[in-house]
């Protein structure tokens, strides 16, 4: 089995837009995770979400990897965009759409996917 660190790195690397959040899109457990998802949705982004709540180690490993202390964390094509505040600001300025257009093309799907990490 892959380590938690490897699994997290894989999601960040392989998913077009990865969101590490509290809860799932069906059951969001935090207002900030909701704000980030809403902004991404408004920008027409596909999202792959990972719930950090099942185990505190997920958040620890993620923050070590990203150097970002809070949740949610949004990545586009492997690159950290920021948390809820930045995602909202980039949506308002039009930069989020621009970034998504550049990284994923304008004909992108808006699929919502959830990845559950395997915990040892």
């Amino acid at each position, binding site marked *: 089995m892959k380590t938690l660190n490897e699994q997290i790195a894989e999601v960040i690397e392989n998913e077009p837009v990865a969101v590490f959040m509290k809860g799932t899109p069906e059951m969001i457990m935090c207002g*900030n995770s909701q704000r980030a998802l809403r902004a991404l949705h408004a920008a027409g982004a596909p999202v792959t979400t990972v719930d950090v709540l099942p185990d505190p180690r997920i958040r620890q490993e993620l923050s070590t990897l990203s150097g*970002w*202390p*809070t949740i949610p964390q949004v990545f586009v094509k492997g690159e950290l965009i*920021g948390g809820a*505040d*930045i995602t909202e600001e*980039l949506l308002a300025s039009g930069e989020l759409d621009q970034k998504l257009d550049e990284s994923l093309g304008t004909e992108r799907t808006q699929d919502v996917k959830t990845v559950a990490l395997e915990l040892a």
Partner: protein
Amino acid sequence: MEAETIRIVLQQAFPEAVELSVEDRTGTGDHFQVTLASPSFDGLPLLDQHRRVNQALAAPLGDGSIHELRIKTKGTA
């Protein structure tokens, strides 16, 4: 944690700030809104501006004293 305590930490980390406020959003001493404008942010991507605020508050973020931190930063140019 008092909003004022956080403000003092940020004041020390960003002595050049032209605008700095910390608001306790919920009155419970753990959800804060930080607003900070500094010439040191000029030309710096938003991600790096937020990183610098997060770094200044690494201790209270790490030990859970700050449960939620909303950040609004800008340069002065």
